[in-house]
């Protein structure tokens, strides 16, 4: 298993009181597979991704990648990168696309070259001359492609995807999901993906963990999800609320 999460807990302090965002969640993700986290907002699914990246405090349990407990150093960021939900907030508004994509290389002391940036843009289906643009000159879907290109600059093995298409239109969502599927196949990436859209999770992921109130509720295979074979009431209610996302009979 490439990613192993054991009894992970994350506790924030809100107004002097502890807020237990994630409580003793365990799961494992096989290399080159796609794993989905679903649940309502506040269920702690995004917090798990943030804890893996070091953006949320781990108060208990462990996260191991390729058998080793994670340390948030440079070597880590060459292995794991994250794509955030809102492409309007996750790109620096005053950095050109060129600068946004060069920065990871500069930080890691890797050779910078024009062709590398052009290649990165071409890989995500954007014209190479987009590197002279600023985020406000791009549409939401184009920005999300830039965010994906940035995440791939260091050639990581693992992509953490936090609702990567929920801010996008149906047609742009389809293009972005197709792009992610293609990149995963081409580069042998492992995805850990958060979404509240069961249809998106079902389309992309092999295994699914359902979460509620910071705890894991049920782990499902894709087949079990598609055929509605869940054992807990909460997972069932989530499934029922997505009835309009089913394949028409």
């Amino acid at each position: 298993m490439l990613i192993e999460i054991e009894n992970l807990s994350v506790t924030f302090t809100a107004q002097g009181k502890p807020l237990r965002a994630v409580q003793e969640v365990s799961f494992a993700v096989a290399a080159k597979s796609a794993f989905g986290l679903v649940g309502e907002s506040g269920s702690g699914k995004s917090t798990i991704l943030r804890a893996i990246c070091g953006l949320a405090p781990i108060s208990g349990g462990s996260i191991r990648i390729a058998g080793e407990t994670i340390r948030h150093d440079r070597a880590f960021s060459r292995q794991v990168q994250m794509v955030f939900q809102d492409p309007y907030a996750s790109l620096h508004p005053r950095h050109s696309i060129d600068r946004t994509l060069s920065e990871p290389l500069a930080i890691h002391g890797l050779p910078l070259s024009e062709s590398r940036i052009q290649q990165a843009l071409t890989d995500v289906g954007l014209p190479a001359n987009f590197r002279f643009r600023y985020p406000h000159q791009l549409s939401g879907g184009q920005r999300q492609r830039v965010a994906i290109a940035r995440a791939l600059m260091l050639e990581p093995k693992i992509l953490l995807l936090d609702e990567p298409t929920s801010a996008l239109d149906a047609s742009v969502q389809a293009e972005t999901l197709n792009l992610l599927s293609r990149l995963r196949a081409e580069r042998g990436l492992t995805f850990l993906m958060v979404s509240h859209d069961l249809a998106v999770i079902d389309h992309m992921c092999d295994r699914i963990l359902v979460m509620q109130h910071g705890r894991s509720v049920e782990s499902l295979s894709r087949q079990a999800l598609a055929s509605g074979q869940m054992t807990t009431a909460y997972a069932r209610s989530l499934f029922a609320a997505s009835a309009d996302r089913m394949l028409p009979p």
Partner: protein
Amino acid sequence: MSLLSVKNLRVSFDTETGRVDAVRGVSFSLGRERLGIVGESGSGKTMTGRALLRLIRPPGQIAADEMRFDGIDLLQASEKTMRSLRGPRISMVMQDPKYSLNPVMRVGAQLTEGLRLRDRLSKPAAYAKALEALIAVQIRDPERVMQAYPHELSGGMGQRVMIAMMLIPNPDLLIADEPTSALDVTVQAEVLKILDDLVRARGMGLIFISHDLRLVARFCDRVLVMYKGKIVEELAAKDLLQAKHPYTQGLLNCLPRIGGPRSMLPSLERDASWAG
């Protein structure tokens, strides 16, 4: 009589690179019902909603043959009349809580501001009313949320705070611009149930702007499909999944389905003639 009638609404912007027509001749009328407006970003659906409240700043311009709400001519109304309409008569839930809530004011202060200033309620009465509104949108810990700043709330909570805020003055017409796009399915169902109860119980009209066709099909009575500033199709919500227009069909086809194939999703092929 219909609550709102709009004939040939146009919204345009004069920019450095020429004139941009965001809305090009939209006509519809609305009773005490749930009307959905669907389309992609840039189709003019948000601009249509904002134009009804005359919330489009220069260089944006609104023109229409008619725009009438409950007997009031919205095109001729003075700015003072418009201010008295916005909120108590017509309110709008904006899309993104991150940009629509004041980041440096506690939620409680934002919720009670209108009640204190407009309705001249006492502090405890306003607090009680705001708390009630938060409970109505099913916020689990309303006392904490009242004390919180917007950045301390999740997207779904922020969205519910905004809905609570718009419902406090009990409007006749609610324009909801993507009110549930930041919410997950179960909370989405709850919020829609709240909106639905309000439409029925208070006889409120609702304009529901969304890019989620399936949601609109389930929730609204009637749907307008917009493409590049025009209405390309109008149909009863229950017929949306059997839509005739190739644009509507294309939007439906590119959605993933539970149990669907893993192959690439079909992309939307656009036809220049749709924009007409």
